[in-house]
């Protein structure tokens, strides 16, 4: 049966292509045909919108105003001279770095724990992944309650060890770590899944050889597991940075808009305020372009630094 299927894939008896083509070309066309539904929607709703955003960023465009004057680079000049923008960038980087570190470490530890041959392995994997399934609205509401100064469960538990109520969401020094904590709990399930796949891809004979050579558990983890997981770590950190750099829902819902003050304003909250509160769509487009540029630079930097030592 396997041979027949192989023959059908590589040697079709009735080609769907009208012209004589070599196998590689036919496979490429077939692949693009399969990809075409995605590519069409991607081109319409992403590429076109991205190009439009770049164009919009050179205009003072308000939604209902009849005129749309061309302002050249004024939106970018205003943006880069706005201290609130730069503080939003710093908040975002702070949040993204702490959160990515946290989700990577917790995800890796959880993956190691549930990859071991234990009873109920599948149950624990599902249990640890459940928070990831929550919507940001539900998660935000729950953590708003958990972090409440006077009525929050976290402060209630801390009171048992003599710690007085902490104003997690009202202290500008604590609010971003608190948001990171909530996000780590919410999103570590995805890196955990990726790490489980990565761990299962490490050949067992390497561990056997290490054990025969007398390596202990710590040595095996740091000398075998971790180095061989570098491609996975690169993937998890790159996708994590891209994802968490666009954070919006957690600060918006948990703190009620990025507070206290602007202490948890991220770049996307800044974008939202400009585009959807002030209705400065042209300026908002400039913000979006700047965010995309920053993310591209960070991602390129990550590839340069981490991929040097990645063993594919």
């Amino acid at each position, binding site marked *: 049966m396997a041979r027949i299927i192989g023959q059908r894939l590589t040697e079709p008896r009735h080609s769907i292509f009208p012209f004589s083509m070599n196998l590689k070309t036919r496979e490429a066309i077939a692949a693009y045909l399969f990809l075409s539904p995605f590519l069409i929607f991607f081109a319409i709703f992403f590429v076109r919108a991205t190009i439009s955003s770049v164009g919009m960023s050179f205009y003072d465009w308000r*939604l209902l*105003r009849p005129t749309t004057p061309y302002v050249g680079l004024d939106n970018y000049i205003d943006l880069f001279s706005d201290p609130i923008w730069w503080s939003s960038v710093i908040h975002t980087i702070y949040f993204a770095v702490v959160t990515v570190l946290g989700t990577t470490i917790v995800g890796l530890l959880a993956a*190691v724990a549930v990859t071991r041959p234990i009873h109920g392995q599948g149950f*624990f994997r599902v249990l640890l992944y459940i928070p990831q399934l929550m919507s940001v609205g539900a998660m935000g509401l729950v953590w708003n309650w958990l972090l409440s100064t006077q009525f929050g469960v976290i402060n209630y538990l801390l009171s048992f060890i003599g710690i*007085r109520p902490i104003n997690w969401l009202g*202290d500008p020094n604590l609010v971003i770590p608190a948001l990171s904590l909530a996000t780590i709990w919410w999103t570590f399930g995805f890196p955990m899944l990726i790490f489980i796949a990565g761990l299962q891809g490490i050949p067992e004979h390497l561990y056997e050889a290490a054990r025969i050579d007398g390596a202990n*558990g710590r040595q095996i983890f740091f000398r075998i597991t971790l180095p061989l997981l570098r491609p996975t770590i690169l993937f998890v950190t790159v996708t994590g940075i891209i994802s968490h750099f666009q954070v919006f829902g957690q600060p918006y819902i948990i703190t009620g808009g990025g507070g206290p*003050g602007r202490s948890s304003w991220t770049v996307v909250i800044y974008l939202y305020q400009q585009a959807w509160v002030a209705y400065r769509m042209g300026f908002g487009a400039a913000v979006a372009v700047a965010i995309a540029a920053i993310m591209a630079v960070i991602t390129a930097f990550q590839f340069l630094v981490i991929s040097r030592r990645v063993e594919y």
Partner: protein
Amino acid sequence: MSKRSSLGFSFIFMVAILVLSFSMIGVQAQDATPAPTETPIVAEIGSGATHISFWNGLTGSDGVTLNEMLSEFAAENPDVSVTVEMIVWNTLYQKLQTAFVAGTQPDVILLHASEVPQFGSFGVLRDLSDQYTSGGGWLPDDDISATTMSGMVWDGSIYGIPLDNHGRGLWINTDMFEAAGLSTDPATAPTTYEGWVDLFQQLTLDANGNNAQSPDFDPENVVQWGFTVGEWPNVNFLGALYQHGGSFLSEDGTTITVNSEAGITALQQLVDLVYTYHVSPPAAGFDTWQGFGAGAVAVLPTGTWYRNQSLLQSDINSTAWPTYQFGENKAAWFGAHTFMIPASTEGENLDAVLRMIQWVSENQVIWASSGQVPARISAQEALDPETYPSNILLGQTFSEYGIQDPQTTVTQELLTLLDVGMQEALNGIKPADQALNDAAVLMQEALDRQ
């Protein structure tokens, strides 16, 4: 800690948080007795051939009240059917902007009067002057207070028909007042800042039962707050600003004046309630309604809309008071839910919309059950004092000394910027004067861009 035990601890922590999360939802559900009526997101009312679409932001119990009124309207007007979409206010403002651009706006909208200048200036609203008796219409001009009427007008045209006045007042926990030996009669309310501080101090208790006037009072361990500054700090501030003789804008409407001496004094007084007198928690991290419902707040500055919530909290005995007076003058912030009609609504749909607005306007007494104060003076005078004490009490304050949001085309943006300044001051991030001055700079930029 070994690796195994650290893994175990991490695992237990995650599971514990998950379990606690859901157990808290259970606790919340148990506390809310009886459960409020759910507000549908979209309601189809009536089955008439003339179909009109209606967007509003009444996502609370007031949306249920309005839908019940529309059902009665549809029963009396069987040729009309209404699709009502209830959308959270901020989202509604955004959705309307895009809908007007796309040409998919509804036939009628209910917005706040402060939105009249913005949408009026874009030319997307119908002039409703002909609906007032002065223009040959059905709505008596003298049945709407001058203050409310001022919010309907932009650039010489009347773009709105007001449904209500909704604004600030206080809800007091009468049991706490009686326990402190204080009168619950609104006529005994203080008329000076010092008097209010004295009241709040007597009502603020630490875990040992000491009130905030006691030398043994522990401000780090408060279990009952006399007051809260966290709910809608903007309007708390605006009331105090006008009480001190200040204003939001200069008389010509071109200069932001919230950071005047009166403004700084007003904000400093609110800040002092948190950090000097310790009678209010900081603004962030404290849910004021939850605090009042849990019996941890004695005086809740909120609004007319709290009426139905207070009726739901059958274990908390409370009553409404007029808003506080911190300055020499009296002032209470209020807004007006206002019907507006897009200029695109025409023909049979326009006729049906106008009939609907007129029916609702002429039955505004029913609307009082939402907690809000009917906009028409005749409806206010027809309210039953036994059923609607808070509507009557707070409505009188709006009529006598009510203040509204400024009339500009960027009012929502200005209020958002002001709110950040409030948060910065009330959470101790910046001194009151610096927070107000910083906010005023950004507000002025926004005003200059309009």
